[in-house]
């Protein structure tokens, strides 16, 4: 048995040491928000935080992770999806199919922590995740929106939000 610190809780898992963290999260712990896209660290759909560092979990063997390293997945990023990045994503309706978006959000939230006011080139460098639907421009806009505290001033995307009891 291996002990991990996942989303602030100690979890015991029974998996071979070479098992990628991605599949430990998905199949041992039931945390399916982290996605399989390529298995070779190309697409970023499997991105989680490891001690705050965005990490591609599909190539990270279980054996290389210590019991005190803090793993944060999309499910543990914030209570009820209230991280500023998640709120900006909702404000601008960023996801299309949504499959890559957990990885995008984990990469973007790590970027904002390291650089609260990222430049376009900071965003280019940090956001190497693949999106086949093509959400890149809204991802960029949402990172900037979160960086300016959610202030919609200057945001060119016009979306009407009608929230009700279903929200």
């Amino acid at each position, binding site marked *: 048995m291996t002990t991990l610190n996942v989303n602030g809780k100690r979890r015991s898992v029974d998996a071979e040491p070479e098992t990628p963290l991605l599949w430990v999260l998905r199949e041992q712990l039931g945390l399916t928000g982290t996605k399989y896209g390529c298995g070779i660290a190309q697409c970023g759909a499997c991105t989680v935080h490891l001690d705050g560092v965005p990490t591609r979990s599909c190539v990270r063997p279980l054996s290389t992770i210590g019991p005190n390293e803090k793993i944060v997945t999309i499910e543990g990023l914030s209570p009820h999806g209230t991280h500023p990045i*998640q709120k900006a994503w909702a404000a601008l309706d960023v996801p299309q199919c*949504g499959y890559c978006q957990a990885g995008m959000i984990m990469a973007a939230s790590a970027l904002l922590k390291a650089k609260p006011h990222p430049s376009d080139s900071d965003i280019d460098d940090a956001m190497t995740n693949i999106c086949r639907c093509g959400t890149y421009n809204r991802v960029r806009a949402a990172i900037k929106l979160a960086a300016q505290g959610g202030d919609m001033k200057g945001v060119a995307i016009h979306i009407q939000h009608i929230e009700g009891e279903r929200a």
Partner: protein
Amino acid sequence: MSAARRATGRRAGPDPLGGSFGVPADRGAVISRRAFIGNSAGLVVAFHIPFAEAATTPAATPEINAWVVVKPDDTVVIRIARSEMGQGSLTGLAQLVAEELDCNWAKVTTEYPTPGQNLARKRVWGSFSTGGSRGIRESNEYVRKGGAIARTMLVQAAADAWKVPAAECSAAASVITHTPSGRKTSYGKVALAAAQLTPPTDVALKDPKDWKIAGKPLARLDTRDKLTGAQVYGSDLKLPGLLNAAIKDCPVFGGKLKSFDASVALARRGVKKVVRVGDSAVAVVADTWWHAKTALDAMPVEWDEGPNAQVSSASIAEVLKAGLDAPQAVVGNSNGDARAALAMAARKLEAVYSYPYQNHATMETMNATAKFTVAKSGTPDRCEVWTPTQNGEAALAATAEAAGLPPSQCEVYKLLLGGGFGRRGAVHDWVTQAVLIARQMPGMPVKLIWSREEDMTHGRYHPVTQCKLSAGFDAQGNLDALHMRISGQSILAGVAPQNIKDGKDPVVFQGLNAPGPEASIGYTVPHLLIDHAMRNPHVPPGFWRGVNLNHNTIYLECFIDEMAHATQQDPLAFRRKLMGKSPKHLAVLNAAAERAGWGTPAPAGVYRGLAQTMGFGSYVAACAEVSVSAEGKLKIHRIVAATDSGHAVNPQQIEAQVEGSFVYGLSAALYGECTVKDGRMVQTNFDTYPVLHMDEMPKVETIVMPSGGFWGGVGEPTIAVAAPAVLNAIFAATGQRIREMPLRHHSLKKA
């Protein structure tokens, strides 16, 4: 929860995967009828009627009609037949129903009826097929009528209760008002009574200019769970006792499985079984997918590679090249006598273009969960499948066929797609595989997930074509004759050969058809001939987002640019001269050109290129701005795009589709290529099949300009103008004409 499952996870609630879907096989009335589903024509089916039963149970949530359910708390559940895969039509279709229903949008939720329920109710929801940008344009009328009929019944129920004429009552935001007395009630309060009324046969639909919900840039209904990891995709499905399978199909198309050493896999932890799947594949079933996948990788497998083991991209290209001048070809569009006019032309111009195979590369690989159960007597009893699909009915047909059961003993539950792009619609090869595996593990649900490598090498690929274009000009440089000879693969020949009539695949001519409402050419040429020499390699083709419009628009729009430059004319002015009879094509072209500043100086070092086309019912145009450094590095700065889709149901989602179309189209133009070596695909993952990344993404300015009077799609057409607009701008910047896709094979470095 009603019998139909929620399509979105917007509302908090119990785990939607807690085993509550499906209609128990032992209840409900049974009807029999002859039905046609997908390509399984003529199957005799018998289905239960879950909704009918639910609607007559007093405690149940009242179904006003097939499209609308109203709960006592005024929550409105709108049923959506088409699949959501990111394109936003779940929200758009709900807007159309809600508009006519006059309900409170803040209390709208959606759910999918199942394909089995659709057949049981004589296809009351119509087609489930979600492709060809048809989700909204093909179903808008009957879903709006569904909303209008439900509103009429709700108002009538209120009027009946008040004993007043319905004409004295009006509805808005789920509240019904009796105008003379000022009395009010809500949809939820009258829903049970309304559900008992006979639906009106004829209802008037609103004029789109009066729309309050449709036509507005409303936020999507399905965003929230995509931000928290709560959204369940096909590959995320959890079921009690679920097993996992990994599969390898013969890498050479048309080859077969020869042998495998199951003992190697069976000796590994968690492995339950190794199974042959059809005549060409082998799968390992294990407790976890990681165990199944690694055991499969470790297991020796031998293939009978069959007759195609020597085929290469070069040999395919030779076959296509021969078609460019072949005497036999099927005509798709012609007027005048192009051959004669070309023979007599004062000046001629000729060019050959080509387009490679491409994989859809959805972010979520193909997957399906299947459960096959056997009765106590030992006879096969039922097969259920959970899968992301663009066409639930076709998935049900594939399930029934693979299970060897009538569709009445099968069901498909649609799960959210991690991308579709045409891969998950016409052919359900992965569903067939999942069912064939489950048949060998009766009683146990088995989830089959393809590795990325399996997905890349067993796609249904964007077809390969080449095109020779020949133009003839008169002495004044006016275009007099144009011949486009397309040589290459027919998608229909691979996917639905029964639709090939007299050797003609009409879909080949997308964007090049004679004037009309679908995919028509925007240019009038005195002598025109567009024909196709069909050449079908062994690689299976598929509908790849944008389909044949993609390469046809590159061919025509780049060659138009060549013609303009060859005759020293401005590319916009040259096009305008040929577009006098195509005002809608011209309007979007003008809009994009004007917004981009065509004819005014671009920033230093920046060059512009144009493209326009019409397809999937809509008119689109783009103006791209690029620069190319001395080292040959391309930067695409900005693309201005204009779209006339007739009506615009949700403008902010149209903008999202246009931006996404540029990512898809530019990924294809810059990088997209699957090459064939030894009969199989060479590219196996995103390292060898790169796609556009964020740092390469241009600014996109979208002009949504619905001119009314028709319904066009928006998920695909813009893809077609992405590449030619950029390629024409590259020519303007470098003088280099790229005629062979993808761009990455060409150096743009100044010679």
